[in-house]
């Protein structure tokens, strides 16, 4: 048997290698990547790959394999030779049958899942940084140039106000984990994340607190933000203090406005 296998040089398994590599890519994207990103990004839940991204990666993987096997006539012939009669090679016969059965099944599955009536999961996007409206752009923290003692006092007052008003959702630690946070599917923002309030100027935070979710511009729909518009109960001064307290609680700095020449 072994002798025969050696003799039959035409027996190449490159088609099986292609199938296996495509499967490996699939497993990596589908199963391993969500966990890898969970660990890398320090999240407490897996990060599933979006299905469209998945589709593109799979198409790329298949194309790459096909390009590889057709880089030379030898490789191409070897690749196709797998379809030739298996002869005595039982494994080859087995793989051939598997492929022949699997391809129509896959096609059937795609057609079925494409036509079966069902509702796609809702798409929900979040615009992280809507543009700051003009009337807020020029705003400046009135305590910006105050002396140190006043600043310290404002920060402390702001921290109290933060704990009273913002804590239920954004959490005592400003980490977006307040006791109400779970109820809002668009979770309250984690301010300690360097990608959030640390990337905006204080005037931006002022706008978001004052106008809240209802004040977001039209492009920032789907209107899922549960951020209240605080202008109904908080004065502008209080909001500025909250901002100071909020940045202090989250232990991050606001982005500084670049000096513009007029």
């Amino acid at each position, binding site marked *: 048997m072994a002798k025969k296998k050696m003799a039959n040089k*035409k027996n190449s398994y490159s088609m099986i290698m292609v199938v296996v590599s495509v499967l490996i890519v*699939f497993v990596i994207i589908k*199963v391993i990547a969500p966990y890898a990103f969970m660990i890398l990004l320090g999240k407490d*839940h897996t990060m*599933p790959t979006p*299905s469209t991204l998945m589709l593109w990666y799979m198409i790329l993987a298949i194309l790459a394999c096909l390009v590889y096997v057709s880089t030379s*006539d030898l490789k191409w*012939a*070897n690749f*196709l*030779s797998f379809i*030739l*009669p298996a002869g005595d090679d*039982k494994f080859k*016969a087995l*793989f051939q*049958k*598997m492929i022949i059965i*699997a*391809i*129509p*099944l896959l*096609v*059937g*599955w*795609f*057609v*079925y899942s494409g*036509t*079966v*009536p*069902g*509702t796609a*999961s*809702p798409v*929900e996007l979040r615009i992280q940084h809507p543009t700051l409206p003009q009337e807020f752009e020029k705003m400046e923290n009135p305590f910006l140039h105050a002396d140190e003692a006043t600043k310290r006092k404002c920060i402390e007052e702001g921290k109290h106000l933060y*704990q*009273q008003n913002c*804590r*239920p*959702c954004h*959490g*005592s*630690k400003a*980490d977006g*984990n307040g*006791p*109400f946070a*779970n*109820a*809002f*599917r*668009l979770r309250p923002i984690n301010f300690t994340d360097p990608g959030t309030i640390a990337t905006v100027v204080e005037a931006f935070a002022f706008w978001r607190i004052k106008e809240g*979710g*209802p004040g977001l511009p039209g492009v920032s*729909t789907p*209107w*899922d933000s*549960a951020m*209240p518009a605080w202008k109904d109960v908080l004065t502008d001064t209080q909001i500025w203090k909250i901002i100071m307290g909020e940045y202090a609680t989250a232990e991050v700095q606001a982005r500084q406005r670049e000096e513009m020449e007029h």
Partner: protein
Amino acid sequence: MSKIKHNIIFRSLILCMIAGLFTFTCLRDGAAQTSQLFRVYSTEATGKIAETSDAIAAGKKIYEIKCYYCHGIKGDGNGSDAPRLDPKPRNFTRNEYKIRSTGQSVLPTDEDLFRIISSGVEGSAMPFWNTLTTDERWQVIYYIKTFNPEFKDKGERAPVSLGGGIASSSDSIKRGEKLFKEAKCILCHGEDGRGDGQLTTTLKKQWDLPFKARDLTQGWMFKGGNTEGDIYRTVTTGLNETPMGSYADYLTDEDRWHLSHYVKSISHGMKTDVVLKSKLLAGNLPAGPEDAVWDTLETIELPLAGQIVASPRFWTPSANSIRIKSVYNEKNIAFLVEWDDRTDEQSEVYSDAVAIQFPTKTPEGLKKPYFAMGDSSNNVELLHWRAYDESVLAAQRTDDSIETETDGGEDVEEEAGDEDAEAATEQEVENAVEETIEEFENFVTIKEMNAKGFKRLSVQPDKSQNSKGKSQWKNGKWQVMITRPLVTADKKIDVQFEKGNLIPYALAVWDGSNSEIKGQKSISSWYYLTLEMTTPNSVYIYAIIAVILAISIQLWVVARIRRFPTEIPS
């Protein structure tokens, strides 16, 4: 030889099926986003440092940056944030520590404090402070201990033995169930463990605040962890300064384990999902909330928060979760909403209530109405059930079962400005829909309302009221069945339930015994409802055609390659 060939075909078939199954499970998205919502209590207590005056001073510094907003500068649990907290922050000057490994009325060990500071407490504002280094956490603990001189005076506190443990089994659970009654747990925790026992409303702590016995069915709300070991610890040590005493002297070690197994067995995790699938029924919809059909349906549980969007905001809601199921037939759709509520006491003003909110027009794009009561350009419809109204209407029906009278019971309107409420009251007449659907004979008409924001709420005219409801409260649980025709004549003000759409829905709950009314309520954000469809036969036909096509193309390719094999260049 043919046998071998047969074998190979068989084996390859099985392999393919396994591969197919694997792909299928992989392609199925989102195996539910449960449990990650809630914290896991860590049992670790490491890196202990010496209790020096330096450590205490360092702890004071941290305490006065991180902790005092709730716990107060003097450690008396009276920080500036305390009025908005329920449960209240711990008062460190007293021995009211709940989660301890020490006996009743004994102060906790340093390790107990470390564990709670590291993990926080679910259902309260206490965050997990694992963001502090272990040294910092120990320093804070040493400072906290200075608030209560007993820590110093009484010296070392020895933990009680919490070792051993017996494995859970159905026998053990059964024994535990018996003990749950015998040890009088049901007096406070209630027959089904929802904290609705007969004593629960009579026990008051300072300032007349009620002692709420733990709802033992909500697994995520177990303070200090929900493993059997954690439950055993609480049963053994008791919770200081609460009616929950230690059962160490009353029940044997083994019995406490049985009890813990039973308590664990009646608790459940929160199984939540973004999309609620309404199932198609061929015949009649369930006859009421107690109908067995409901048990066959999938339940989705949604976390709730206090209404914090519009003033007056509400910081201390009673309900923290709500369950919903749905079913429909050709004519009507029905929802069963369930939530835990310790009492069913109602008053005219403060009544238990629930509302389901839909956009009046199913959004086509991403843009939905504002999740709380809609907005000026996007109308929402509310199906609003109120326990008090139902009891009034039901009583009236028995009084004069044929003639319907004007209803005097409807009173206060939630959310609406006061003037709106009064205007609405006058319009309230019960004989709304005359074409009573016989399917829902014992149901009462519930209020359908429209809102374009918190201040713009209106009750629909009587002729447009076509939702019905029926409820039951049993052992600490409300079950309210709400039903409505799928389509109505009022296309402008009513949501139309059409197949194939993702219809946003949101829920709100009021607990009358917690004085919840109008904007004082628990709310959810938008989730989606979809009416499940039967698969038309054409789908299968397409799939079969595709398979046949694939096979023939494949065979043609194989045949061609075998006939004209590519030359392998040497």
